């Protein structure tokens, strides 16, 4: 009380005067806000520092290669002829193959788990999906290398034999030898699909299950079939989550290292025949070459890293943008 009385009371506000209406937060709030703000800013700072580090260490190589770094497909740092073009193309190709396999499966699995599975099975499936997402990539890599590859050779051959005559990019050299189909972008892509599948499923399932009950009941009360209700309520609501899930999966697939590393046999031409042995990708390339490179070659690898960093940053930002603009991303019940 006495502390209050020491200060003269503020003069009553004039009726036409605008008043300050922002309360001064108590000390504990200020400390807490300061702490969380520091934490959030520091993630941005770390991110920025990584980018800066990559840029600084990449500069020597970029100074040598100039803009050709983005167009050159060879990797011959000894003669200053190196670039990220074939690597980036291979990275994108493998990621797209992975998505082509993973997205339809994830979509179906997410719909089944959120809409059709009985309650007991639903819990089990959610746990299993989460578990799958937690399995280290190296496990998928070994599975891909030792098991999947052998089984996919025949599939590759079948695809090539059946569709090759119509779609030239599916043809391979020496089509009758099974080994022509090993270590290909296709096999790497399918293996990577297993890595991204749980992530995409999880994101999609989450948004599907958030579709408002009131709207679901509205559709059902109108005499909708289950699928009619899903089409009218769940899918429009989940559109942001579908796109967001796909893009998060894409970001993950672009950066996948060990799975691709074990399966592919590296080459520095543009992969034009995904079923044919030999392709490349940025992350495995860095992993393979970093121990044996120095000077400009090492700097070149960091430049590759910079390109991958910026590319995945772009994809994830776009994903975040799409998700936040959609109803499901806003997670508001109206």
């Amino acid at each position, binding site marked *: 009380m006495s502390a209050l009385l020491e200060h003269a009371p503020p003069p009553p506000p004039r009726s036409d005067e605008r008043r300050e209406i922002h309360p001064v937060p108590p000390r504990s709030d200020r400390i807490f806000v300061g702490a969380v703000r520091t934490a959030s800013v520091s993630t941005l700072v770390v991110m920025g520092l990584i980018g800066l580090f990559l840029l600084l260490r990449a500069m020597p190589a970029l100074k040598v290669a100039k803009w050709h770094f983005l167009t050159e497909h060879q990797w011959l740092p000894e003669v200053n002829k190196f670039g990220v073009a074939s690597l980036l193309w291979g990275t994108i190709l493998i990621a797209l193959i992975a998505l082509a396999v993973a997205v339809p499966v994830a979509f179906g699995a997410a719909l089944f788990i959120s809409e059709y599975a009985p309650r007991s099975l639903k819990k089990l499936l959610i746990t299993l999906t989460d578990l799958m997402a937690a399995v280290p990539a190296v496990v998928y890599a070994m599975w891909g290398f030792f098991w999947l590859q052998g089984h996919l050779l025949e599939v590759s051959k079948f695809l090539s034999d059946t569709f090759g005559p119509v779609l030239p990019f599916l043809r391979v050299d020496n089509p009758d030898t099974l080994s022509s189909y090993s270590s290909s972008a296709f096999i790497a892509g399918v293996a990577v699909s297993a890595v991204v599948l749980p992530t995409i499923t999880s994101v999609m399932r989450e948004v599907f299950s958030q579709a408002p009950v009131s709207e679901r*009941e509205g559709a*059902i*009360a*109108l*005499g909708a079939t289950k699928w009619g209700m899903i089409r009218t309520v769940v899918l429009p609501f989940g559109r942001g989550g579908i796109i967001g899930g796909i893009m998060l999966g894409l970001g993950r697939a672009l950066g996948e290292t060990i799975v691709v590393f074990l399966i592919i046999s590296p080459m520095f031409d543009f992969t034009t025949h995904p079923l044919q042995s030999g392709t490349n990708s940025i992350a495995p390339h860095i992993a393979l070459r970093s121990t044996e490179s120095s000077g400009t070659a090492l700097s070149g690898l960091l430049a590759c890293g910079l390109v991958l960093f910026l590319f995945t940053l772009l994809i994830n930002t776009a994903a975040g943008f799409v998700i936040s603009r959609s109803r499901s991303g806003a997670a508001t019940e109206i």
Partner: protein
Amino acid sequence: MTDTLTTPLPPLPTSAGTPATLSARNVGAWFGDHQVLEGVDLEMKAGQVTALIGPSGCGKSTFLRILNRMHELVPGASLSGEVLIDGDDIYAPTMPPIESRRRIGMVFQKANPFPTMSIHDNVLSGLKLAGKGFGKGRAAEAGDLVEHSLRSAGLWDEVRNRLGAPGGSLSGGQQQRLCIARALAVSPDVLLMDEPCSALDPTSTRRVEETIAAIAHEVTVVIVTHNMQQAQRVSDRCAFFLAAENQPGHIVEQGSTADIFENPRDERTSDYVNGRFG
């Protein structure tokens, strides 16, 4: 005030539903092992408005949801007895639930239009979901049905110039009337309303009540309400539900609205309608 009741309606573009009589026979309901309704017998006569009244938690809404097979959507829900629409059991194995729900429409406590769908498409959504949507060549017919349904729901004048706007852009009261229009567009024989005005302001409430009065001749209405004045204003018949503590709900008294309010036989009914409890 313009009298929306006397505004002549354009002729119906599709065959209107014919009001049907809905009879509940000895209906009981459970959630898991918990019984919430017991021995409910109620006839909801064709072309009349039946109000279900009673304190919260007495099973009115559960009963209403039983009438168009929405009860079974709740995991663990079960029931006994039968519900007949013009003599046909809606729970008969030969009667698909989708068919029952198309004949028996429902308006919920909370307005639930499809928020990103246009007002126009919201009205037609029931037909589209039933696979009876209008193709591109029948836009005029579709337009007529949209206008008729929105007029019936008393919303046409407010939205006629923005039929392409999303359903979610309307005010709460307008959204509720859009839901009524949507339910009417499929020409149901019965319309169930679960406290349709509980979230609405007095003006919107009056408009919904006008709507109920206007549609009562072409569809049987069953309405759950906590508002005694509303029950008196809109209904022809009333059923008073009550549940003793830890006992399933049942109907204490039913009869004409006038009798229930002015001449109740049971003391508990008298206490409730006069606001002495509940």
